């Protein structure tokens, strides 16, 4: 899995590519954690190129969400394909995350 981060004005964008699964969740957790430790509490996660997510992947996102909320921040996800949308709905994780269809929508949601 590729994890590409880009610092923007007041937030960080993480672009994930591949499968957010057993083999990769630790790397994603590490990278997101590092960003939070550096004081980034507003994060956009681009899931456009993610085609699979396991429970571990969902858990990592939830853990980071908790951390940024403690810092008065937020995480917004965008670019979920139909498979991912279904996983978020079936698992109820969609109730806890801001999910947007586009990058612009995600940016707007991050500061709303």
């Amino acid at each position: 899995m590729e994890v590409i981060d880009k610092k923007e004005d007041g937030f960080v964008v993480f672009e994930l590519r591949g499968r957010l699964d057993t083999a990769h969740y630790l790397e994603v957790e590490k990278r997101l954690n590092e960003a939070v430790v550096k004081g980034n509490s507003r994060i956009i996660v681009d899931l456009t190129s993610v085609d699979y997510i396991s429970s571990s992947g969902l858990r990592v996102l939830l853990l980071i969400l908790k951390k940024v909320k403690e810092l008065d921040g937020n995480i917004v996800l965008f670019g979920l394909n139909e498979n991912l949308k279904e996983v978020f709905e079936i698992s109820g994780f969609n109730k806890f995350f801001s999910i947007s269809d586009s990058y612009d929508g995600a940016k707007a949601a991050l500061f709303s």
Partner: protein
Amino acid sequence: MDITLTIPEEIFLLSIDAEGNQLENKEFDVVLASSILMELALQNRIDTDLDFVIPDQPTLTTNVMLDEILSVIHASEKKKSISHWIIYIYSQIDRVKKNIISGLVQKKVIRIENERLLFVFSSKKFPIIKQKEIIEVKLRVRELIFNNDIPELREIVLISLIHYGSIEFVLFTDEESQEYRERISQIAKMDMIGQVISRIMSEITMAIRAKVLLRIKSAEQRMDDLIEKFKLDNNVKSDVELPEWLKKGTVQYHKTLHFMDETGATKINYNAEDRTYLVLED
């Protein structure tokens, strides 16, 4: 000194009433079996998706029984469903219970009291020595339901177990269960292992009734049969060539599996145009 309890230990403690009587029935046994898988998931030893258990880190835990189950999961050649592993653990539930009880006794949280009734039957009670442990678990979970916080992973697991195991009464009054029904079910479904519990319960209950526990085929096994038949009938050589509704890992496969589960069917067909399943005669 603080004691660290595992999820199976916590759920076992929750099932003990003020007199030390422990809830004993087949449904609770399914809850306990599921809690073992959940503990392994929390310790990053296994991962799951909507249907399957995926082996994660093979390193040993500090619990012999968890390690035994973990080694079987890791040694399994094919990835198997969540329900397969719950049934596997359920098949050795007496040993699982003994392990949980001895763990709690060792940690000096409960003691075992043998009771003789009418000079014939003896039953066991498990008076709780350290009430603090159980009070803390109860407070933690109740508080989460009553506020709108983002849940911790351990709380998700416990709520999922009591909700899908139909034992909400160990933590909530009937009125509370009613009032917070939406929040409870919303958090409960965040655990994919938990979501399978109610399904397994009805499968096991039916199997026990029919006394054919060893003969029943899970929905996943019936799906495997169906896939093999499809491959033969359509000269399909590899899984990659299968249609979405039979291809493992796809959302449509997940839907097919649920349909098989709900209907108990062994032969079905899928109409991709109107997205409907049809049960075929055996």
